[in-house]
């Protein structure tokens, strides 16, 4: 209803304006001053309406404003024709109503400012006083807005051609300040018009008009002569006086923001006391956080963009002022939710990081203030606050990109104490990822300790609460971060590195059954690297109590890998034991090597029952054992005997066959004469062949329905005989090989074996070797044979 009426009134008013403007224009064209005034007054009368909403009134006003432009030009021409301001004023008095009269007076007055007929000072003073006559908020606001607009380019401002001496500048200043003050009063008065039910609507309307008031501040900032001194002594106090005295929340919010945005940053820096001091004087409902954060943000950007300004920050002690101010706000607003106060500290922190990035003590202070605040509210339970704290903790991390710096902030872990488990873990992940992303290098055990403390949400479960809801993949990914992290913990000094290893182990072992298999391997390999480094060093340089000897570290690893047995990861544990055995072998620690093999074997016997897993595990055992050089004859025998035993007892016969012939290599070490036992090599191969025979029999028994690959096994064995023949094993006779070859030939005649290509390539190889010069062809002479296919 009302909206429609609004449209109707506006349409009617527009029509009237248009009509009067037309006649006014005609009068102007015929130089008829009186008529021009008459019609312009009529036109301006439309602005006397109370029926329009501010939005619509503005539309009307704009239309009128445009028309007044022509009138202004006409007045200028009149002055050229010798008409004085006094005369014009006189004529205007005949306009019946006050509002049109005032608009006209403003228009005339502005023309005369330039003429120097009357002093600018007087005109401005008169105009700004006269406008008091209109106390209706909406109309008064627009009237004064008009006054401001029409005088704007006539004030001595920066970049204008108008020169002004000190007096002219002060007068202009005074003019704008007064206009602003009055406009604000009118604007605030709008709040109290009408019923309380319509409060929301009024506030919305007021918001639409706010730039009219704010514009004045912008003009002030552009005035010439408004230097720091004038700003500090005159401009700011006057503005703030109005801001405080108007006691209006909307105005205060808007104007504070305006001040911050409109005036130069170094002004703010120098008047920081004043700005901050005004905050407590504002209405309680004003959101100080927004004001403070706006100010801090502007000053942060200022610091970021002009390095020369940084000393000023120090000089005015910006940090302590803000810190104090925020403390006061938080103190005063008892009901401030945790999220709110953290937000404030977040802004202060960002400010500090921007401006005082090398002052870790300041950063730590902010963290400390936050901790104090949080301790009053206790552990957080709402998401919003948690999010803010994460943002708060991220800020220094992202600024410095170096976790080592963060570790120096004593209050950092204390802030984390206030996070709930879930958020704590999130933060831990962020911290670890920061290390990985920036490839930060952490080099002392103490720092490692501190880092793992910070990341404990990721390293372990909190007080027995196991997170059962987590996705398996996500969990693994998280723990993989931890594993990767281990590789960034490094020191060239073996003693320190050893301490690091101990520290990492201490933390990782608290991880629980799900985590250990994912994190222990990284620790083990990091330690093995250290052992390799120690190996190159002097014998026992540190004395008995030193931690950093290979033996001691291997002992540690033995205990560590044992922890895996408790959490059902036998395959992994076996592999790690074998790795340790190799390291022990390289350090010539015979007993330790044997120990590790014992543990590996026990795991194989007791824990690894899956057939496929057994095959792989056994291969690894054989492969590792084959490389051992430090074992005594007896110990080597024991282990070899057991390995061959395991091989013969694998479930599937082909697997047995292969494992047994692989064991042959245990009796032959190429570079070590006393580890070459030709006879036992051949024994293994014969034994393997018997198993292959058994496979063959099985095939025959099942009427050759499916090839069990027995021929392939024979060919593999043949290749192995050739291998040892070449290595100079005298026990490999030509007869053995020939009869095996014969066997293969006869078998392939019976049925498709699927091993044809293997046979062919083997034959080709034999032929090739026979062609070789020297010893090789001699060896191959032994097995010269015909092969018809």
């Amino acid at each position: 209803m009302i909206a429609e009426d609004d449209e109707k009134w506006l349409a009617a008013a527009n029509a009237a304006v248009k009509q009067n403007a037309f006649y006014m224009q005609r009068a102007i064209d015929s130089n008829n001053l009186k008529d021009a005034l008459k019609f312009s007054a009529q036109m301006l009368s439309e602005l006397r309406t109370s029926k329009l909403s501010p939005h619509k009134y503005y539309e009307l006003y704009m239309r009128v404003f445009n028309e007044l432009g022509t009138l202004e030009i006409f007045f200028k021409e009149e002055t050229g024709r010798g008409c004085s301001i006094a005369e014009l004023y006189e004529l205007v008095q005949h306009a019946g109503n006050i509002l049109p009269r005032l608009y006209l007076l403003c228009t005339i007055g502005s023309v005369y400012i330039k003429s120097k007929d009357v002093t600018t000072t007087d005109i401005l003073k008169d105009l700004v006083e006269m406008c008091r006559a209109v106390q209706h908020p909406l109309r008064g606001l627009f009237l004064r807005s008009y006054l401001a607009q029409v005088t704007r380019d006539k004030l001595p401002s920066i970049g204008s051609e108008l020169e002004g001496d000190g007096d002219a500048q002060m007068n202009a200043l005074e003019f704008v300040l007064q206009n602003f003050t009055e406009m604000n009063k009118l604007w605030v008065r709008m709040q109290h018009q009408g019923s309380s039910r319509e409060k929301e609507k009024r506030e919305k309307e007021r918001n639409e008009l706010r730039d009219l008031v704010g514009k004045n501040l912008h003009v002030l900032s552009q005035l010439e002569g408004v230097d720091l001194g004038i700003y500090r002594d005159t401009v700011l106090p006057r503005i703030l006086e109005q801001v405080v005295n108007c006691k209006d929340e909307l105005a205060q919010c808007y104007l504070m923001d305006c001040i911050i945005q409109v005036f130069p940053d170094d002004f703010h820096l120098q008047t920081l006391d004043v700005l901050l001091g005004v905050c407590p004087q504002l209405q309680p409902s004003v959101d100080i956080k927004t004001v403070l954060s706006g100010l801090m943000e502007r000053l942060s950007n200022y610091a970021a963009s002009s390095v020369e300004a940084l000393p000023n920050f120090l000089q005015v002690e910006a940090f302590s002022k803000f810190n104090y101010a925020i403390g006061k706000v938080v103190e005063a607003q008892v009901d401030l939710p945790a999220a709110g106060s953290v937000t404030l500290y977040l802004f202060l922190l960002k400010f500090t990081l921007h401006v005082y990035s090398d002052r870790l003590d300041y950063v730590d202070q902010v963290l400390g203030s936050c901790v104090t605040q949080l301790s009053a509210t206790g552990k957080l339970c709402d998401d919003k606050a948690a999010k803010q704290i994460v943002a708060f903790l991220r800020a220094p991390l992202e600024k410095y990109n170096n976790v080592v710096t963060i570790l120096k902030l004593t209050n950092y872990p204390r802030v984390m104490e206030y996070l709930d488990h879930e958020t704590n873990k999130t933060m831990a992940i962020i911290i670890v990822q920061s290390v990985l992303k920036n490839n930060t290098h952490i080099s002392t055990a103490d720092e490692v300790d501190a880092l793992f403390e910070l990341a404990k949400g990721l390293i372990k479960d909190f007080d027995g609460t196991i997170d059962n809801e987590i996705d398996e993949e996500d969990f693994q990914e998280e723990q993989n971060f931890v594993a990767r992290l281990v590789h960034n913990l490094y020191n060239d000094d073996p003693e320190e590195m050893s301490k690091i290893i101990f520290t990492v182990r201490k933390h990782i072992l608290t991880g629980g059954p799900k985590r250990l298999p994912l994190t222990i391997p990284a620790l083990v390999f990091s330690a093995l690297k250290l052992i390799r480094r120690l190996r190159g060093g002097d014998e026992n340089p540190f004395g008995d109590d030193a931690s950093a000897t290979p033996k001691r570290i291997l002992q540690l690893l033995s205990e560590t890998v044992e922890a895996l047995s408790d959490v059902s990861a036998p395959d992994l544990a076996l592999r790690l034991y074998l790795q340790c055995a190799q390291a022990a072998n390289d350090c010539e620690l015979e007993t330790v090597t044997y120990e590790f093999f014992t543990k590996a074997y026990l795991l194989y016997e007791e824990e690894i029952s899956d057939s496929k897993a057994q095959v792989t595990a056994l291969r690894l055992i054989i492969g590792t054992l084959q490389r051992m050089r430090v074992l005594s004859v007896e110990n080597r025998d024991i282990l070899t005997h057991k390995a061959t035993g395991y091989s013969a007892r694998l479930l599937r016969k082909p697997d047995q066959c292969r494992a047994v012939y692989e064991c042959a290599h245990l009796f032959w070490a190429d570079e070590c004469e006393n580890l070459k036992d030709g006879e036992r090599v051949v024994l293994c191969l014969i034994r393997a062949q018997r198993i292959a025979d058994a496979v063959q029999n099985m095939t025959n028994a099942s009427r050759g329905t499916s090839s069990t690959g027995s021929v392939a096994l024979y060919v593999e064995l043949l290749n192995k005989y050739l291998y040892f023949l070449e290595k100079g094993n005298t026990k490999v006779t030509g007869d053995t090989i020939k009869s095996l070859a014969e066997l293969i030939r006869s078998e392939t005649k019976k049925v498709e074996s699927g091993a044809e290509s293997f046979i062919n390539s083997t034959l080709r190889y034999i032929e090739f070797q026979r062609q070789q010069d020297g010893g090789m062809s001699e060896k191959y002479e032994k097995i010269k044979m015909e092969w018809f296919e």
Partner: protein
Amino acid sequence: MVLVLALGDLHVPHRAADLPPKFKSMLVPGKIQHIICTGNLCIKEIHDYLKTICPDLHIVRGEFDEDARYPENKTLTIGQFKLGLCHGHQVIPWGDLDSLAMLQRQLGVDILVTGHTHQFTAYKHEGGVVINPGSATGAYSSINQDVNPSFVLMDIDGFRAVVYVYELIDGEVKVDKIEFKKPPTSNSAP
């Protein structure tokens, strides 16, 4: 011209945090037609990463691989070459070229790509070529004392294969090149 990336033994996260940045910047998606991987990634994240470089990923199982479904060995044909892929912990003695030659005969391939030793090798023998791309991350190895990060890029064009090996030594990427030709009358298995 077919580009084949051969790499393996990354051992992430057990022995290394990630590929060296210099390698990562070289491995640009879309430039490579096939990836053959000797195994020991060890985690899914690396598998996924490799897939972004090239979707045609062939991989065999290393003893530390998380995914138990990778095969023990694999063969494939590229150009005129038959390639075989096997991690190498299955071949005893580890790193023994004669034993590897036997595997090559068994699989019937021209080029056998294998890992485990973390040592780059390109070994030409009677039956073909054995290539070991080493460890792409320079991971710790109990077999090889001094490991530099390395990987191999093969440019296969019909009967000709050019093998580029990239090694990170003292922070610099060094490249070497070896050429292999396969005689048109094929000696290897049909």
